């Protein structure tokens, strides 16, 4: 025991004081609603204040797990994740390398890459829906101009194609955001590490692979968790671009949660989807934390 017990208690209490405001806000506005949602997921309710709430046990979960729509929405969430790891991560990390490299105008490049995220989802969705319009949008116009008019299809109305369009617009919007995370990791690498690498003749791609990536592991972890949870919850951009349609083909679980709750007025079933998403997100991030990035924690 290095500390006397009173000192220990003092720092202990201080530590609690530091986390308390955050905990309080989270409990009131996040945890309490979740508990409420969980309770609702075991009941049927049409969302009208004076209507009865009736206990149905696990029925809502059974209905969700046996519905085709739900599994289709899960598939769309998986597309989001694939897009996140295959497109977004390399692009964002590449951008981070660019803006921290020794080329000029990094300030300008950084500012421009980050800009899309500043625009707000509604504006971005509106903008890209017009770009992707198969009559007058830029892609249709471009394809027709180079004689590939036959390749023009209704991108946002063709199942699978539409969700990928949304995924790519999402990457367009958030590449700069994730660049910031990686860039913060890269600049936190101490200067002597760079010097040592230089002395060892470790430059260019080699340095990226053997020095920068391992040292940014924490940031990759941060990215992975944000990506996985973000993909499960993806709502705004999908809603802005396709409303989840046509016929729910581009709906993500969060969109389904919304339509089941507020359009179909099945509050119980909607709550069940919410709880499934929550549990799935927790399980996945704990897995990421403990399995894939385990050695890093040591």
């Amino acid at each position, binding site marked *: 025991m290095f500390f006397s017990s009173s000192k220990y208690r003092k720092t*202990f209490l201080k*530590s609690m004081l*530091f*986390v308390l*405001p*955050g905990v309080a*806000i*989270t409990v009131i*506005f*996040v*945890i309490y*609603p*979740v508990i409420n949602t969980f309770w609702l997921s075991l009941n049927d309710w049409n969302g009208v204040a004076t209507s009865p709430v009736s206990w149905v046990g696990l029925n809502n979960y059974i209905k969700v797990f046996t519905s085709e729509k739900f599994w289709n929405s899960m598939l769309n969430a998986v597309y989001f994740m694939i897009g996140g790891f295959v497109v977004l991560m390399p692009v964002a990390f590449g951008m981070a390398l*660019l803006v921290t490299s020794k*080329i000029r105008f990094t300030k300008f*490049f*950084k500012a421009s890459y*980050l*800009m*899309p995220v*500043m*625009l*707000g*989802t*509604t*504006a971005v969705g*509106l903008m890209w829906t*017009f*770009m992707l319009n198969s009559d*007058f949008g*830029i892609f249709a*116009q471009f394809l027709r101009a180079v004689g590939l008019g036959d390749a023009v299809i209704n991108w946002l109305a063709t199942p699978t194609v539409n969700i990928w369009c949304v995924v790519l617009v999402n990457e367009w919007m958030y590449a700069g955001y994730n660049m910031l995370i990686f860039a*913060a*990791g890269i600049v*936190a*690498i101490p*200067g002597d*590490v760079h010097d040592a690498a230089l002395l060892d003749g470790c430059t*260019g791609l080699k340095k990226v692979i053997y020095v920068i990536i391992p040292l940014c592991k*924490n940031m990759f*972890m*941060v990215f992975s*968790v*944000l990506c996985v*949870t973000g993909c*499960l*919850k993806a*709502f705004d951009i999908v809603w802005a671009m396709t409303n989840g349609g046509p016929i729910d083909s581009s709906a993500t679980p*969060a969109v389904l*949660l*919304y339509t089941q709750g*507020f359009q179909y007025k099945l509050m119980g079933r*909607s*709550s069940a989807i*919410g709880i499934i*998403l*929550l549990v799935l*997100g*927790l399980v996945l*991030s704990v897995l990421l934390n403990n399995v894939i990035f385990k050695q890093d924690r040591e």
Partner: protein
Amino acid sequence: MNKKVGSDKLKKGILYIVAVLLAAITFLPLIITLLSSFKTNEDILLGMFSLPKKWVFNNYPSAVETANAIRSIGNSLFVAVATLIATVIIALPAAYVLARKPYKYLKGVYFLFMAGVMVPVHSTLVSISKISSSFGARNSYFFLILIYVAFNLSQAIFLFTGYIGSLDRGLDEAAKIDGCGDGRMLISIMAPICKPIIATEAILVFIYGYSELIFSLILISDSSKYTVSRAMLNFTSNYTTSYGPQFAFVIMSMIPMLIIYLLLHEKVESGILAGAIKG
């Protein structure tokens, strides 16, 4: 020697090409949107690539007039800044303790915050609406900001804890030996070091606060308190069939963001610089 310089130049050249290409992909849709905001409806429907046949400037006044754009932008800015400050003030101390202190209960606290990242917003709507009614907090910015903070806290703590975790512990050990308590350590050592990640988070929270829609939709009904998303929504409604003013509003809603971003951007730069110098 010559060869090396040549290959270096080539490498740099490639970097520039990639950088410019990425920037072009980023800017193109915006330029097209900007052009469209000066077009008539028919002109837009003809195709988006071309310059406006006839430059129409009254798309902008018509957006300002009907959407009360200036006030709503001001409201959003206020809410966004307040949310940002509150989030950082609440999250940083918590993250510091979570990253540096060994107490067992902190694992649970961390898990609690992480659970927050996972919560889908829509499944909390009904509950939060009820809480706000029972507190009589409809139309209250204070309440709205608290909710914004709650939904940003998880991410902030996640990012801060990750960042502080990646920092060398030697620094705070040294400070501790100098007799530096937790409070001072936080303000005079951690806060400056964490500048880059604070800047990152600040930008994210700011964007969230500025453009958030769902909660403001449900909690704010007083039209003088509308945020910019609300105002934009009222504008791009089902029955408005002219696109020019819609594009104009999109551009207008972005202008304050871009100005502030340029200002804030300097802070990000200097923060990163500070981080690099420390290394």
